[in-house]
């Protein structure tokens, strides 16, 4: 009898080993009108085992658009659909993590029917321009919000009549360019290398005419007359970089983008031996270059500091991009025994959560480099993790947790793990003095720095809050984009960054899950129209001064709510 109780207790507090549990993810691919798409390839990748998701399995949808992946371990997965037949997958802004899927879930993936842009490209004398790439570059999304990082973009070639057809274009506002980013094609030379891009109708980027693209609609007659302007060259060499002893399967490459719009203007592979690179056909303007080199060992990746270059009427030579090793954060995720267990039957595993590195941005940061600063992975079956391939900077770690029962209690680096919970202890963290609160301060990493011993503490008993914003006066109108803040109300929680939340909403509904129980305020603020959709700004709570401002405003709004352990609030109304 005694042994049985003991086993039961252990089962309550320890996550089930992933080896015991296997399951299935099922799903369906449909168009935005709801019709199933058959014969579409769906790819499953896992965040477990390496920093970048690697495709594990593929499946093809059947006549009803259904697919399934069976016999999967209890890990963290992501699913991609190959775009097909002019249908487009949803685009995720570069620093917003993709959804994480777990076994037992059913997924619906929606593809929207893209629009089409078509027209004819000619030289000034009317001759067709044959075999040149035309790109559709998205500058605003379907709601009109600006897009900051303007790549990747769709490109198709003109035919013998100079006619091009770009299809599978998601709704939004575009500019159309001829020969943009010509050197992207890795050394395959085209007749147009060295020509500056021309924008519809016969303009530079500044004077380009914008085109609205709508779902399923063809915008024809988008004819472009080539300006035949020479662009300039930017060249230099990539230095640094350790010699690999084995056969060289990775080469260093340099990428040049316009600044600050982040439009890809070329990728060049470094010449082996000299490390030399060159970009052709660049019009006057501001650019940013960065060099990188991959490695089969994930700790071996290298990145250079971004380098700003101005092209003003002549070639720019002698740019040196120095490769430097990348940093990492390593540690362990620990599930702390908790007095509150929301669902004793739940069998979540540590391998089902993902950790996401997020870099604190500076105003001088290049928007295009945001993609480099986010690494997502799941810990192993012991809870150990290593986020690597990080560029220098100050980082915090965010999570995507399985289910709604867990919350993050503390993230710290230094000597101790989190102290065990005692009956009656408040949920405010108490830590010995020689640890660093990484949630509050972040980890400042230099190039190649390896931070170890990070403890990521999770506990059971989380609460969630779902609700809707309603106008203060019935019939009043809400701004198109609002941001809702969840602010811990206790005075002792001022600096407990993990208890602050923010959610962006365009239809007024908001969801907060996986929060520590306690007292909270809710606050809604409008989002500036100029804020781009493709870039989530750093959470306000990361900055001490901003936290105070937020608390003041939240307190004044007098919208306190108490969340008890394991409580699920469903229809909370917040007046704005």
């Amino acid at each position, binding site marked *: 009898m005694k042994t049985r109780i003991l086993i039961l207790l252990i089962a309550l507090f320890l996550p089930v080993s992933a080896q015991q549990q296997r399951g299935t993810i099922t799903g369906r691919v449909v168009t935005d009108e709801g019709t199933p798409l*058959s*014969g579409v*390839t769906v790819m499953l990748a896992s965040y477990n*085992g*390496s920093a970048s998701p*690697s495709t*594990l*399995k*593929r499946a*093809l949808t*059947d006549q009803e658009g259904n697919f399934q992946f069976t016999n999967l371990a209890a890990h963290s997965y992501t699913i991609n659909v190959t775009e*097909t*037949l*002019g249908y487009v997958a949803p685009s995720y802004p570069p620093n917003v993590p993709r959804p994480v899927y777990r076994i037992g879930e059913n997924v619906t993936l929606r593809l929207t029917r893209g629009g*089409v842009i078509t027209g004819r490209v000619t*030289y000034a004398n009317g001759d067709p321009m*044959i*075999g040149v790439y035309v790109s559709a570059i998205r500058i605003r999304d379907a709601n009109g919000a600006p897009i900051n990082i303007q790549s990747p973009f769709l490109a*198709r*070639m003109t*035919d*013998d009549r100079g006619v091009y*057809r770009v*299809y*599978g274009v998601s709704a939004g506002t575009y500019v159309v360019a001829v020969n943009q980013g010509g050197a992207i*094609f890795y*050394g*395959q*030379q*085209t*007749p147009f*290398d*060295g020509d500056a891009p021309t924008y519809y109708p016969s303009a530079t980027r500044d004077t380009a005419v914008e085109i609205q693209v709508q779902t399923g609609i063809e915008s024809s007659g988008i004819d472009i007359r080539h300006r035949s302007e020479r662009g300039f060259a930017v060249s230099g060499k990539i230095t640094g970089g350790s010699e690999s002893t*084995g*056969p060289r*399967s990775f080469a260093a490459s340099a990428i040049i983008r316009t600044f600050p719009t982040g439009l890809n203007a070329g990728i060049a592979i470094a*010449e*082996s*031996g000299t490390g030399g690179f*060159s970009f052709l056909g660049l019009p006057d303007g501001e650019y940013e270059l960065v060099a990188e080199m991959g490695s089969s060992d994930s700790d071996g990746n290298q990145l250079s500091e971004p380098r700003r270059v101005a092209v003003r009427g002549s070639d720019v030579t002698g740019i040196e991009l120095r490769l430097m090793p990348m940093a990492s954060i390593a540690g362990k995720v620990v599930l702390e025994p908790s007095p509150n267990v929301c669902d004793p039957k739940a069998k979540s595993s540590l391998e089902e959560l993902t950790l996401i590195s997020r870099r604190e941005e500076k105003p001088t940061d290049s928007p295009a480099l945001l993609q480099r600063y986010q690494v997502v992975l799941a810990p192993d079956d012991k809870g150990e993790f290593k986020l690597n391939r990080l560029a220098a900077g100050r980082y915090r770690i965010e999570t995507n947790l399985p289910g709604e029962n867990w919350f993050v209690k503390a993230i710290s680096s230094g000597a101790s793990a989190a102290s065990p919970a005692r009956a009656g202890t408040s949920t405010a963290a108490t830590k010995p003095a020689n640890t660093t609160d990484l949630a509050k301060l972040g980890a400042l990493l230099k190039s190649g720095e390896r931070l170890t011993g990070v403890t990521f503490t999770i506990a059971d008993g989380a609460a969630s809050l779902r609700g809707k914003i309603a106008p203060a006066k019935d019939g009043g109108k809400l701004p198109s984009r609002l941001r809702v803040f969840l602010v811990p109300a206790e005075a002792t929680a001022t600096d407990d960054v993990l208890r602050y939340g923010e959610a962006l909403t365009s239809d007024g509904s908001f969801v907060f899950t996986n929060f520590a129980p306690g007292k909270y305020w809710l606050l809604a603020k409008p989002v500036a129209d100029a804020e781009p959709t493709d870039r989530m700004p750093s959470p306000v709570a990361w900055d001490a001064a901003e936290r105070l401002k937020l608390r003041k405003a939240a307190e004044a709004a007098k919208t306190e709510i108490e969340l008890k352990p394991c409580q699920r609030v469903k229809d909370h109304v917040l007046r704005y």
Partner: protein
Amino acid sequence: MLKLFSTMFVLFLALTTVAAQPPKQKEATATVSGTVTLNGSAVRNAVVSLQAQNQPVPQQPLRAKTDTDGRFHFAEVAAGQYMISALTPGFYSASDFQYGFPGRTLNVGKGETIENIELQLKRGAVITGRVTDENDELIAETQVQLQRVGDRVSLRQNMLSLDMYRTDDRGVYRIYGLPPGKYHVSVGSSARDGLISFQNVRASIEQTFHPDATDQAKAKVVELEEGQIATDVNIRIGKRKNSYEVSGRVLDGQTGQPVVGVNLELRFIQPTTGRVSGWVVSSGSRTDANGEFQLLGLHPGKYIMSIRAAAGKDEYFNDPITIEVTDGDLAGIEIRAQRGAVISGWAVIEGTTDPAILAKRPQINLNAATEDSTFAFNQRSARVRTDGSFQIGGLSAGKKRLIAYTGATGFSLVRIEQNGAPIKDNQVEVRAGEEIKNVRFVFAHSTAAIRGRVEFVGGTLPEGISINVMIQPVERGSTNGKTAQVDARGLFVVAGLLPGEYTLRLSASYPQLSTQEISLLTRKIMNHTQRVSVAKDSQIQLTITIDLSQEGR
């Protein structure tokens, strides 16, 4: 087309006398100029590319643009072999038929002034149409294949023009820039060549020719004149065939551990003849961290599966297994990989300690190939390292022939030896898992070269013909023969010959199918043979005249 200009002849003669002068202080560079024409008229603003060939490190090509008179000019050209071509999408030139590469070979001598290179363009023809199925549903994003009918002209395709070989969202394709002639247009994968559908779709398309024929004999030929636009070349496919998935894993035969990062190669076995197709398909099939692989889009049939290691991990091989796909997915295929035998040693250059010459060793590629099998599964190669050592791994047991590829290094293989004893016939017997050490590939380096010119009198050559010069040592059993292509001006260069006696012969290849006239011509060309004596580091000048008017021989 080989056009002969008297000016070039005079220049060539001038060169032979110039060679006697003492070398200049500064390295003289050459200039190359000429015109681009379309039906005799100048083409302006055309980009011409001059790309150096046989470089250890790929070089950026030189580019020039034609002026209002259609003239281009390259200055400061280093000596060497080049490919010159006009980058003019939508147009083609006769020389595009040589080996399917755009452009013509050009041998540039030091400080030479090369003029009057004419790149003659013709307007390409166009084939366009729509692909639908039996329900009139359009088939989007599908690969379209073109085959020449009645000759061996190979169509120029580079990565940039692949776009046009796919149908768009309306099922429409448009392929331009084609040389005139007869074509078959089809979509889908052929039953003959190995049936993996690259589109990875569950229901794949059986090869269907315009307008709706799965039997090539019933395909309609599209005949194009120069610059003609053929529209409505539509293809209607029938019911699609099911394709299936094959999955499994690769394990180390001894330890049972998963083998990570190897590619699976499948070869289709012809059902009627039992012949193994040479066509290898291995896309998307690298084993993951658990040693697992997954291949989608396979048609029913018998296949031979073998593993091929990724670069740098070539320790494993497997005894190829046969699988049969009938009417369902195949799962749980287990492949036991074995650690292969290893041949290691050194590449040695006799008679020199010059570091500049030794630095060329990494350009040598060494190969150990299975000598006796019906399929070339177990061929492994390795590049010589900077210190001269090499290691070829992942070899199956059996007799292996050792081959060295020396490219343009000027090295010639003198002998192969192990532990001081020469290896007979360059063949070694390898036992399973054996380590064969201390193998030495011994090379000699030579700067001896033959610079020659081939002249044809008394007749014209067919368009698109390509002439090669073959230099073979008189001594039997030697593998140090070299070949060189005769360029646009009739010039050729054969370099890196070891001292000795050689026989020189010519060969011809051309895109047209053989006619009696062409056969006669070829015979005359191939009948030519002459003896050449090569002394150490000697520079030999030759002129070969072929008389096409002579009756028979």
